């Protein structure tokens, strides 16, 4: 059977599974729709959180990015896992005890202010939309390569599936579908990694494999070979990076704090029955995430060695284009690989200096990896299904945040307080249907590069929500004036910096022009600091928060008496 038929079968089977789960877990109430009835086991919730969290970017792009960045790729590895420590220790248990559906609900109640709630709703919707655009793009890439349909059709198919289970099942449908999607995506990620690890180093565990000796009998360590190749070909040494230390520091911090401030991640901890479970669930989530995140750098180094070896040939002089392996010709069709015979010797050559003749898009590394390593066709089909699972699960989670923000925080709590639960549920469904369409549109016509858009989401979450929530829990005195001023100044500063360098003056986006040498990706950290400082300064000169709010804060600081997450 050829790869395409296999891909259709495997992807089709996973789709059938998701739809089956959606029908089985229809939502009957707003409680089901928003927080899955609050009865999800911490282990299942951890798995769902992991699938929710690991997006098309994690599955498809991350290993490729690391492969090209070497050590610098650690900003993603540490940044996107370290945030869970913050979540587990500083946020999740308290927000679970607080027991409301959404992040804006916490901000609105804690800061006893409709304005604060509105600011939070707008931030939540904005962050989620920027993020979801990237996911749909990922679905499109997978469809266009493996099913040979164009990106638009791919996105529409993907949206149709998400529409079905998000609108029907809400959080309940999404959570159980995500558990299935996690299993699909982790299996699809690990199988090729283990295959390749065994082939290259003889070690079954990729995490150890990439620190082992090569299996070719040369006795060289894989990473040493990679450093050697990099030096020969004019790249920076793989195990050291090109970014400045301060930039690595700030980007890592922005991603960590951003993770802990993303509404679609935080809301996951409202779905468990107890405070105790919220702590545990964060641990499970990180365990499931770590499985993929510790494998990614291994895949990155395997893929890089493999790719250089196949393109430059065993004698490192280049491979004749007429003998190019099929993965190169396959991916050339998508335009993500191209070859230009500069020295007209008919041979392909890849390097980091002017001898280079290849243009290789980073996004293809994970998807092309099984082909590069000559793995069986079913593995390649599996990877396609995994990529789609990753993109769909994250989109669904984000769409839920958007629809909840609109129906609950905006309509029920702001504009139309008198609607019944049934009406609210209808509005939630309409809102998620509209959100699906907008996300699909953004996937077909993506605003700029996906990676830039995602950096935006993290920077904004880091500079708005995270400080407001932390101060809401750990400072009883923090008042609404402080929180609102903090959120506005943090998000304005961060957004202005990113917009300036990414959209107004992209040519000036070089380290010399950056404030303290911090890139737009890392500026959210500084935005967060500004938020904290402004909030504390303003709170000092205004009246402290009222007594009942201070009592509420005292009350969320211990687990006893946590009820189900509720609307009112």
């Amino acid at each position, binding site marked *: 059977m050829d790869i395409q038929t296999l891909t259709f079968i495997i992807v089709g089977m996973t789709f059938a599974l998701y739809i089956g789960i959606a029908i089985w877990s229809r939502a009957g109430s707003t409680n089901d729709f928003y927080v899955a009835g609050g009865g999800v086991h911490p282990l299942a919730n951890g798995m769902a959180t992991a699938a929710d969290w690991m997006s098309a970017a994690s599955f498809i792009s991350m290993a490729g990015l*690391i492969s090209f960045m070497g*050590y610098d*790729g*650690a900003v993603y*590895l*540490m940044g996107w*896992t*370290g945030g*869970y*420590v913050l979540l*587990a*220790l*500083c946020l999740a*248990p308290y927000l679970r*005890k*607080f*027991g409301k559906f959404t992040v804006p609900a916490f901000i609105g*109640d804690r800061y006893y202010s409709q304005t604060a709630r509105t600011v939070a709703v707008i931030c939540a919707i904005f962050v989620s939309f920027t993020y979801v655009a990237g996911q749909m793009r990922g679905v499109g890439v997978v469809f266009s390569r493996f099913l040979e349909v164009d990106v638009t059709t791919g996105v529409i198919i993907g949206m149709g599936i998400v529409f079905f289970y998000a609108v029907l099942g809400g959080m309940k449908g999404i959570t159980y579908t995500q558990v299935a999607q996690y299993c699909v995506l982790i299996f699809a990620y690990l199988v090729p990694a283990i295959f390749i690890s065994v082939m290259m180093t003889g070690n079954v565990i990729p*995490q150890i494999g*990439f*620190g*082992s*000796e090569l299996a070719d009998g040369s006795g060289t*360590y*894989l*990473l*040493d070979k990679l450093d050697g190749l990099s030096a020969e070909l004019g790249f920076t040494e793989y*195990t*050291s990076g090109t970014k400045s*230390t301060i930039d690595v*520091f700030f980007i*890592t*911090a922005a991603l*960590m704090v951003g993770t802990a401030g993303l509404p679609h991640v935080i809301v996951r901890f409202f779905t468990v029955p*107890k*405070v*105790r479970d919220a*702590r*545990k669930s*964060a*641990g499970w989530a*990180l*365990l499931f995430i*770590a499985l993929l*995140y*510790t494998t990614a*750098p291994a895949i990155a180094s395997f893929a890089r060695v493999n790719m250089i070896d196949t393109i430059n040939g065993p004698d490192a002089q280049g491979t004749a284009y007429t003998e190019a392996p099929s993965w190169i010709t396959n991916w050339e069709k998508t335009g993500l690989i191209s070859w230009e015979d500069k020295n007209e010797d008919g041979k392909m050559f890849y390097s980091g200096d002017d001898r280079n003749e290849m243009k290789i898009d980073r996004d293809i590394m994970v998807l092309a990896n099984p082909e590069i390593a000559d793995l069986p066709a079913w593995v390649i089909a599996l990877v396609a299904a995994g990529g789609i699972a990753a993109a769909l699960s994250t989109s669904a989670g984000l769409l839920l945040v958007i629809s909840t923000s609109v129906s609950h925080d905006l309509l029920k709590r702001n504009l139309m307080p008198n609607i019944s639960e049934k009406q609210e549920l209808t509005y939630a469904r309409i809102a998620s249907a509209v959100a699906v369409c907008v996300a699909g549109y953004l996937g077909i016509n993506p605003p700029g590069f996906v990676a830039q858009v995602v950096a935006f989401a993290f920077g904004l979450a880091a500079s708005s929500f995270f400080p407001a929530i932390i101060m809401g829990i750990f400072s009883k005195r923090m008042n609404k004036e402080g929180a609102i001023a903090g959120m506005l100044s943090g998000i304005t500063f961060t957004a202005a910096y990113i917009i300036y360098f990414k959209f107004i003056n992209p040519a000036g986006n070089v380290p010399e022009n950056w404030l303290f040498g911090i890139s737009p990706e890392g500026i959210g950290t500084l935005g967060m600091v500004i938020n904290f400082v402004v909030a504390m300064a303003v709170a000092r000169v205004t009246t402290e928060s009222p007594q*009942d709010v201070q009592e*509420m804060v*005292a*009350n*969320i*600081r*211990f*687990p*006893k*008496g*946590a*009820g189900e997450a509720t609307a*009112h």
Partner: protein
Amino acid sequence: MSFESENHAEAYWKENLRLMFTLLSIWALVSFGCGILFVDELNAIRVGGFKLGFWFAQQGAIYVFLVLIAVYAYKMNQLDRKYNVHEDHDEAEEAEPVLEEKFGQ
């Protein structure tokens, strides 16, 4: 107030904060310390094919994060029991009115 006394509430919160700050220091040490600030120094040490700084940045820090959350969840459960503020079915019946009744709208 679910605590037996104001002192208990304060002591519980202090112990919680102490645990949190200890764990967060380790969190910062392995990621920002070993993985970023001291990466060059640690790279002089090799473990198998890994330079140690590189290993911390791409592997080690993540393993430590996992342990930190596990320790926190375990220790906090103990602390909840010590001050009798844990959640259990037998207590749920005589528990405080839940937040929504107190502060809900």
